[in-house]
């Protein structure tokens, strides 16, 4: 629900928006800037080295939107078109900063394949239950335990920041911004199959980080109880 609300924050349909932008309707432009800059800025930071660079990429993107709106052909949604402009602007900037190598590099590389869960978590070959969990993953607190949620989010943000660029870019678009695989294919020019490899690994890493975090919280709680 929340994700839907963010995807479509009560914006008028594309044809209406495009017409208003072409008529130099400032309110329409302000509406788009306010609705999309959050997501765009998050994505920009996946490509460039600093917050300052990301802010400039965002600025340049919107300026390119102003310049390019008359030529927009409606072959994709307006939002996808704006995101593509951001990705291209950010890539150029990232390459210049030596942060990313030119674009072919979004495709998965060797380290993106292979087990995403530590093989030691499973019983060895030869065991009667080979390939099954040695021990089940520990139970997590329910998502409703709101007291934790701020810290949990911070942990997730840190986990995403630590991912390799290509994994971070894909998980940001798919899971944080809620784009479909087809939309991400259009934005990044990355096949659905390649996206899935990166997304799968990225999710497994973020989950593993939360697992470590919850285990630490749990140990602290148990330790605290033992002392008191």
């Amino acid at each position, binding site marked *: 629900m929340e994700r839907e609300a963010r995807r479509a924050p009560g914006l008028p349909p594309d044809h209406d928006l495009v017409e208003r932008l072409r008529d130099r309707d400032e309110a329409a*432009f302000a509406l788009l*800037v306010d609705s999309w800059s959050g997501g765009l800025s998050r994505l920009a930071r996946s490509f460039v080295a600093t917050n300052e660079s990301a*802010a400039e990429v*965002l600025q340049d993107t919107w300026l390119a939107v102003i310049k390019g709106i008359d030529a927009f052909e409606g072959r994709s949604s307006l939002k996808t078109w704006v995101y593509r402009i951001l990705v291209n602007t950010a890539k150029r900037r990232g390459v210049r900063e030596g942060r990313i190598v030119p674009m072919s590099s979004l495709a998965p590389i060797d380290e993106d394949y292979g087990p995403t869960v530590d*093989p030691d978590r499973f019983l060895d070959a030869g065991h009667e239950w080979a390939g*099954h*969990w040695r021990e*089940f993953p520990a139970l997590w607190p329910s998502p409703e335990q709101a007291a934790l949620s701020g810290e949990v989010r911070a942990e997730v943000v840190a986990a995403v920041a630590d991912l390799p660029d290509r994994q971070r870019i894909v998980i940001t678009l798919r899971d944080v911004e809620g784009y479909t695989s087809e939309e991400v294919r259009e934005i990044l020019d990355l096949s659905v199959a390649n996206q*899935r490899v990166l997304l*799968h690994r990225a999710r497994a890493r973020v989950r593993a980080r939360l697992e470590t975090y919850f285990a630490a919280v749990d140990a602290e709680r148990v330790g605290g109880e033992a002392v008191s």
Partner: protein
Amino acid sequence: MSDLECNEFVELVTAFLDGALDAETEGRFVDHVAACDGCDRYLDQIRQTTQTLGSLPPESMSDEARESLLDAFRNWKR
């Protein structure tokens, strides 16, 4: 048709959530999760992870940057 092991199951989770498994593999996946509490929990934790990712607050733009964009828009000549 053989049963899935847990270490195979965990590698199919994203394809399953994307609805991208072929019917036979999806059947094995669902059979496995029905029978294995550990994998049921793993799948649920992946879901919880994506839900948390989807609830991160958007970043905001500085007022200054916003103003300068609106200025640029205003000054944009045909």
